[in-house]
């Protein structure tokens, strides 16, 4: 195993954070530091690099326990503002999922549907402190006799509320184009026919998992910024994979790792959890996530210095290939080009549009930096590595 010239431990860095002496920079700021001084000097100077991402992230939702009613009810069906929550958990527990559309929505019957309200919006309403109409139905039991219950509730009225997102923070994602002859409405936004535009997600060089491509620091137990509060990485996300094409420093060139994250919804803010309506597709939730990366050695300093020009993704046709279930790469493009507003495919210039907010991602990295500098946020040491295919 390669010996590092700089070796730091979580404990040492946390001691510095407590004394407010930790040197913290964002994933954008570290780029220059490593370029000018080199990895070793950067690793000596910097203790933590903060990252951020803010994007519609399906596979998000919240476990809610609304407390026992009088008389008691064993809720078998639950609605919040007419959005169905999954109630098959326990008497007064449910899970409100981000992509559940409000009952009675016309969906895509008039295409493209607007999808004005759904689970993501319920979560945003709750964290904004708005009252939400809760409706429960049951069949009645000896111990839980009530069959119906209805009440306006706010987040503070709920006994427990846990944001638990099974798949967030995708490590890379497709660049979407449309080769068909008609305009299409997808979760990657509006795609005009005959390759007239391209959309992409992820915040590139600021995105958490591009800064730790082999999951050397981000693991189960890592403390993170989640929805404006402190949360945790609890598992590899669903669809997590690591056997992928890789480029410089092992950076995935296609979608790869994901994270399952958890946190207390009551501490979160509507600035970082925002309901999304995707025209013609459905509803989702914008989630803000920031992950601190401890610069334990020069190898990790090197990973965090990743730049948009070194990060590539695959161009996929959402007109025919993707919906048919047989997506194939039509070429590769860098995030530098994607963010420039224009890419070239087969010599043709195509305007690009992001789905993720780079502006908000940068804000998150800066907030996390501030929290750590002030000693309010300590690093959570990974208790178990997330599978990454690395030694």
């Amino acid at each position, binding site marked *: 195993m390669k010996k590092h010239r700089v070796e730091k431990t979580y404990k040492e860095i946390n001691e510095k954070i407590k004394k407010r002496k930790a040197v913290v920079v964002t994933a954008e700021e570290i780029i220059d530091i490593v370029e000018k001084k080199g990895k070793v000097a950067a690793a000596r100077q910097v203790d933590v690099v903060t990252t951020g991402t803010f994007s*519609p992230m399906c596979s998000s939702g919240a476990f809610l326990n609304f407390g026992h009613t009088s008389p008691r009810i064993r809720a078998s069906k639950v609605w919040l503002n007419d959005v169905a929550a999954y109630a098959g958990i326990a008497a007064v527990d449910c899970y409100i999922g981000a992509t559940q559309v409000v009952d009675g929505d016309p969906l895509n019957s008039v295409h493209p549907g607007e999808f004005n309200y759904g689970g993501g919006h319920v979560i945003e309403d709750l964290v904004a402190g708005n009252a939400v109409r809760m409706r429960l139905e049951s069949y009645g039991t000896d111990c839980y006799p009530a069959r119906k219950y209805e009440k306006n509730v706010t987040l503070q009225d709920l006994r427990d509320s846990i944001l638990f997102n099974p798949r967030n923070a995708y490590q890379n994602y497709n660049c979407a184009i449309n080769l068909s002859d008609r305009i299409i409405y997808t979760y990657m936004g509006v795609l005009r026919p005959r390759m007239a535009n391209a959309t992409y997600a992820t915040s590139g060089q600021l995105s958490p998992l591009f800064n730790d491509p082999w999951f050397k620091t981000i693991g189960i137990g890592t403390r993170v910024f989640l929805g404006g509060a402190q949360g945790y990485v609890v598992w590899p996300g669903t669809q997590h994979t690591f056997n992928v094409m890789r480029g410089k420093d092992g950076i995935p060139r296609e979608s790869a790792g994901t994270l399952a994250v958890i946190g207390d919804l009551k501490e979160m803010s509507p600035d970082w959890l925002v309901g999304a309506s995707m025209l013609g597709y459905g509803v989702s939730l914008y989630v803000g996530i920031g992950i601190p990366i401890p610069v334990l050695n020069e190898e990790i300093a090197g990973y965090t210095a990743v730049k948009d020009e070194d990060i590539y993704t695959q161009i996929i046709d959402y007109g025919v290939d993707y919906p048919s279930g047989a997506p194939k790469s039509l070429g590769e493009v860098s995030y530098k080009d994607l963010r420039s507003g224009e890419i070239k495919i087969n010599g043709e210039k195509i305007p690009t549009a992001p789905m993720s907010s780079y*502006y908000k991602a940068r804000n998150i990295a800066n907030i996390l930096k501030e929290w750590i500098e002030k000693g309010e946020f300590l690093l959570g040491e990974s208790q178990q590595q997330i599978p990454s295919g690395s030694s």
Partner: protein
Amino acid sequence: MENNYSKKVVIRYSAEIVDQPITYHLVKDFDLSFNIMRARVLPKREGLLVLDLSGTKENFDKAIRYLKKSGLKVEPLSKSVTQNTDRCVHCGSCLAFCPTGALYIDKKDMQVLFDVEKCNGCEMCVKACPVRAMEIDLI
């Protein structure tokens, strides 16, 4: 004469004057050139025109006075189309469907900005913005 002034305006007709040849007068009497960006003019109903007018400033002002005197409501387009900056998350997905480049990203601080002078009032952003940050009142 120098055509140095250009502005997008929303003109609202009442049902009584919807049959008058307003745009004809704009050209004939005030020497303005116009580009119809949007029009909904139905017989005996309220109507709406979004015009990109250009000509001299003097003639433009005269024309607006004429329109108002004729009983029409005239407003700059910027009053009807607004970006709710409290709501906008600056994701930039609007760049995919805004046909005129009125919605764009400031490359420096990466915020989504709205240039109403480029907007043609197509209203695509009203339904396609995932957080409903665009507000248009063109009814």
